[in-house]
């Protein structure tokens, strides 16, 4: 379905080159759900933008491929995924154009990417609005974004993501801007709709609790690199990368965001050499600052980018 292979993304900035993603490899099987989890600034949105074909100007992709339905959408411009992948953005307030009605905005995308006439599109959209439980679905077509609440807007964006019958939906922290109750409702809706249609889902979050509720598989991203990947159950029950272990150790309820580790994600313009986690790692070894740790396969698709994954963490790191 979707596979990202060795993707690197760089952006030139005033303070030098920002190495935002480095050799990121992950895949979403047909009908599968993959969660990408990591602290703010680790490159989650950039990954999605690369997949959606909306990287900012001045971005370089020195290495890697993104295969979507068998074609490399980076190498082959004609294969661009724009309009063929459903996108649920992070901020429902800023992602809709305030001067066009909800219907007009979604219908414009359908005009290019969905079969049928405008009337078919309208009927289908009204039906989708009903499926996402928007009140008064027919009238919602002609309303402006400011006439909806935040939760309703996110429902609208979910409907928009499904409007062109994509095989894959990608979501960028779709509940971050919402209150907790609304968050839960939106997640339930998203799960139900993607499962019912057999869609693949790539779900980005900084919240392990949200991730556990939605995704079968997980990739933990740290400073633009994949630290650990595997079945969500396996990673949660037996995290191997020191970073993942500390995250989960700090937050046994697994529903808190990833701020409990001392230090911060390095700036993309000043990535440390070797293992990018080494300045914060309690297990750090002399070689860690020199060698980029390779991805080591463990059991059943579980893999970790740390040769010292079997060592126990010192006690204070888990406190």
């Amino acid at each position, binding site marked *: 379905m979707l596979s990202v292979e060795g993707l690197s993304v760089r952006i030139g900035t005033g303070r030098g080159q920002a190495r935002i993603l480095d050799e990121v490899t992950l895949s979403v099987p047909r009908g599968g759900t993959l969660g990408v989890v990591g602290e703010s600034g680790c490159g989650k949105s950039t990954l999605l933008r690369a997949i959606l074909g909306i990287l900012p100007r001045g971005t370089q992709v020195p290495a890697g491929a993104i295969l979507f339905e068998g074609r490399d959408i980076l190498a082959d411009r004609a294969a661009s995924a724009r309009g063929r992948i459903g996108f649920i953005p992070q901020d429902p307030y800023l992602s809709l154009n305030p*001067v066009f009605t909800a219907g007009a905005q979604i219908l*414009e995308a359908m005009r*290019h990417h969905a079969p049928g006439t405008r009337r078919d599109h309208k009927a289908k959209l009204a039906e989708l609005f009903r499926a996402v439980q928007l009140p008064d679905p027919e009238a919602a077509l002609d309303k*402006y974004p400011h006439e909806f609440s935040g939760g309703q807007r996110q429902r609208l964006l979910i409907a928009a993501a499904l409007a*062109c019958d994509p095989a894959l939906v990608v979501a960028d922290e779709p509940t971050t801007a919402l209150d907790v109750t609304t968050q839960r409702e939106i997640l339930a809706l998203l799960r139900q709709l993607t499962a019912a249609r057999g869609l693949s889902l790539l779900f980005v979050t900084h919240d392990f609790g949200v991730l556990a509720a939605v995704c079968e598989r997980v990739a933990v991203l740290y400073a633009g690199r994949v630290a650990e990947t595997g079945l969500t159950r396996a990673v949660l029950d037996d995290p191997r990368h020191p970073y993942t272990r500390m995250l989960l150790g700090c937050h046994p309820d697994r529903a808190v965001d990833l701020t409990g580790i001392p230090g911060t994600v390095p700036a993309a313009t000043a990535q440390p050499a070797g293992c990018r986690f080494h300045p914060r790692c309690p297990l750090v070894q002399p070689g860690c600052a020199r060698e980029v740790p390779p991805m080591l396969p463990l059991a059943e698709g579980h893999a970790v980018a740390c040769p010292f994954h079997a060592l126990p963490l010192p006690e204070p790191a888990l406190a």
Partner: protein
Amino acid sequence: MARYILRRILLALPALFGLVLLTFVLTRVIPADPAATLAGDAATPAQLAEIRARYGLDRPLWEQAVTHMRQVLSGDLGSSIFSGRPVMEEIVFRLPATLELTFVALLLATGLGVPLGLLAALNHNGPIDHLARLISVGGLAIASFWLAIMLQLIFAMDLDVLPLRGRIDVALGAPPTVTGFFLVDSLLAGRLDLLVDTLRHLALPAVTLCLPGLASIARFTRSGVLETLQKDFVLYAQAAGYGRVRLAAIYVLRNAVTVTVAQIGLLFGALISGAVAVEAIFDWPGLGTYAVQAILSADYKALLAVTLVVGVVYAVVNVLVDVAQALIDPRVAEQVK
């Protein structure tokens, strides 16, 4: 929406009221003693008293103000001190001439300025952007009288392809008056020759008048588009697979021009005052030339009438601009509630 428009109109009324009051105050301030102005230098005190009584100048000031107000509302702006003819007659003939010129200039400024600004923004720091900047700076820096004379020299004298001055060829004569706008009236009369001649006469003054407006409209559109392009919803629309042209020309532009449209209200004032110079150079029989004549002959009645009429036009244009803004951005009407 209808409520919003009504509100805008109601809000314009106090401004108009203030304007009428202002014209009254001016009639009392400009001539130190209106009776003396009317009676002439050699008048005796008895003659002055008689004139005061005849024009109601001996009444209390508030009563005079009310009378003035009533006259203005009934369309009676008095008679020219110079010619003795009712000022309104002149205005009815000259206002359409000025409006036709300013509207065509505004149309040119918008019709060229908006696409220019859009292309400049899409071509940020590229050749088109530089060209647009050149036009913007030039349009604001070049004095319109200089440009007018250059255009006359080139197109009317050297090349002899456009008329030097006036509103229509005297030999052809004006179309029968219906609206006073020659473009409209010649169409109504089915006279294509007059339409073409009107357009030929409009070309040079309209181009002269539009240039500063074109410059600022292009500048505002450019910065509006650049700002809008940074928005999340543009990124979202790209991901959703909008067509490139449609994204730029409709989706982004509609957001961007809200600021531009607000500018047009201000711009209109600049156009009207710019029209005074342009009309003088091109001998355009509009309010501008009338105002110049009135100033030169100290015809304060005529001057006040021009002030009043321009004020009314300005108020109407600003209501239209507000309504246009609300049509473009539905939140404008919401915010006012």
